[in-house]
């Protein structure tokens, strides 16, 4: 990016809420149902019907507001936003305009250089989703209204974001909070989390905003980063060429890595918002607010700090372990069996996450229970088995999630810690490998590894490596 310029980015994020039913009627929000089977007169926009607000939508939105340091407005109202599109049967979307439910919040992102940055949240409001249009037919557009009326929460950021990376971190943090709260599954690829960006560029030091464009259709976190980088470059190039930036909406094309102007000739939006007379104001009283606060789980930042303080973990470990609530829960369940915090962290970060990533499974589907992993760590720490053998036992546990103690007994893997037993094995190996012994004595230290290998082989890996090392060095130095 050209060093003379800086980008000014604001994000609008739509999060589908994990309620069982729609925002204004009792139809199911289930994804993947047969077309037009989760519909009723209310979400079809039939004349004479009345929307009734799903209480859970209010609770979830307030929860998100509290989690993002927002002011929860004691009174908020719904408005109609008018536009014509076939997947919006009423010809208006019920949303909030003036008096949204939450305002003036912020979240903190951790930048690569270790500094923290606050990103302001302008507002969070409730609204209904539109249906789906299917355009790939020859003559007609097909409309499926199952999604119509699915509850959405729109989270609007302040134009505080300066780089695509910051946008990525902001989105990741929002998703983390949403999934910790259990109010949205955060899946951008499936559209349950969507993001539009407002972007402008200006010379560094300038305080006025440049002309902005809006980029839509970025359906993954990486696509957001790429699309923003593309659009910032495009705007800077225009300015450098002395050209003007046109205020317009662009669609990100992930296949060709470009943002194209939207082709439909959209008129300047005139949504004619006005208060929806069908819906009563929402008033959040103390009692309701207290009840919602009681549902607040420990949030990612607090959990991370607790892991650092209570378990003496490095910040890096704590960051990864708290990346999702489920992973953090898995880690903490290990600690009901062992108090070796760091070993537990190492096992999760290397062996467990390796399998999770390779097999693309959820930690909740991980075949080894955290309790059994805890037992395995204890078996190493009380010297029943060596770390190396533990890896083999772990592989066995992945297949069966059996108790590691049972596996160790069955396969006769208990570590040999009896020094006299090890001593006789060491002596045997030394007398069988006279040549190597002489090499060692003449200064080739590397041969030691070979000899240790021979001993471990003889014991099928069961000899305690520390004792083997000590005895071997003892014996060899007595030969000098």
């Amino acid at each position, binding site marked *: 990016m050209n060093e003379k310029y800086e980008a000014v980015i604001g994000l609008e994020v739509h999060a589908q809420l994990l309620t069982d039913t729609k925002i204004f009627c009792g139809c199911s929000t289930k994804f993947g149902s047969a*077309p037009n089977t989760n519909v009723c007169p209310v979400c079809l926009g039939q004349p004479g019907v009345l929307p009734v607000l799903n209480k859970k939508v209010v609770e979830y939105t307030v929860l998100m507001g509290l989690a993002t340091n927002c002011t929860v407005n004691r009174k908020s109202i719904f408005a109609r936003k008018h536009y014509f599109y076939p997947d919006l049967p009423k010809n208006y979307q019920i949303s909030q305009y003036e008096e949204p439910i939450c305002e003036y919040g912020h979240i903190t992102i951790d930048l690569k250089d270790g500094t923290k940055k606050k990103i302001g949240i302008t507002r969070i409001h409730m609204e209904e989703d539109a249906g789906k249009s299917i355009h790939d037919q020859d003559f*007609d557009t097909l409309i*499926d209204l199952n999604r119509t009326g699915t509850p959405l929460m729109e989270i609007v950021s302040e134009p505080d974001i300066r780089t695509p990376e910051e946008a990525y971190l902001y989105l990741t943090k929002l998703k983390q909070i949403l999934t910790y709260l259990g109010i949205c599954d955060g899946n951008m690829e499936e559209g349950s989390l969507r993001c539009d960006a407002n972007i402008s560029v200006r010379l560094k030091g300038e305080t006025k905003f440049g002309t902005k464009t809006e980029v839509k259709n970025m359906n993954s976190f990486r696509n957001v980063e790429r699309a923003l980088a593309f659009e910032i470059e495009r705007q800077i190039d225009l300015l450098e060429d002395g050209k003007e930036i046109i205020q317009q909406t662009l669609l990100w094309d992930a296949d060709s890595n470009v943002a194209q102007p939207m082709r439909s000739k959209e008129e300047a939006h005139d949504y004619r918002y006005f208060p929806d007379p069908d819906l009563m104001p929402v008033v959040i009283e103390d009692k309701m607010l207290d009840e919602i606060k009681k549902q607040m789980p420990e949030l990612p930042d607090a959990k991370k700090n607790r892991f650092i303080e209570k378990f003496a973990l490095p910040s890096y470990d704590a960051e990864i372990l708290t990346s999702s609530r489920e992973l953090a829960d898995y880690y903490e369940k290990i600690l009901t069996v062992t108090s070796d915090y760091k070993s537990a962290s190492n096992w999760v970060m290397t062996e467990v996450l390796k399998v999770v990533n390779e097999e693309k499974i959820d930690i909740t589907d991980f075949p080894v229970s955290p309790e059994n992993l805890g037992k395995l760590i204890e078996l190493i720490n009380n010297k029943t088995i060596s770390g190396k053998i533990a890896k083999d036992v772990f592989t066995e546990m992945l297949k069966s999630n059996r108790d590691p103690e049972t596996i160790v007994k069955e396969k006769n893997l208990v570590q040999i810690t009896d020094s006299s037993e090890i001593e006789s094995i060491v002596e045997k190996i030394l007398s069988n490998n006279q040549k190597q012994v002489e090499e060692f004595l003449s200064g080739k230290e590397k041969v030691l590894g070979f000899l240790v290998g021979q001993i471990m082989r003889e014991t099928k890996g069961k000899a305690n490596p520390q004792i083997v090392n000590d005895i071997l060095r003892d014996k060899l130095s007595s030969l000098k």
Partner: protein
Amino acid sequence: MSVTKRDVEYIARLARLRFNDEELESYTAELNEILNYMEKLNELNTETVEPLSHPIENVNVFRDDKLIVSIDRADALKNAPSRDEEFFKVPKVINK
């Protein structure tokens, strides 16, 4: 404040309505009458009055997040001018 014929044409277009000249004239006049009446209300000092968003003083009308069986798809599609067994059909919206 006064509404011109062009304003009425604009509002009509936003609402996807088509008026003939006679109708345009009469709606322009009617809208102006309504706005003149509103002007009269503007003479009142409303500084200490909260904006009214709803004439009924009722708040927090909620429903629980409980599933209600949806209607039959055949019934849902019944009134559509164009449809197949599964979908509503509309003229092609975008050209790809």
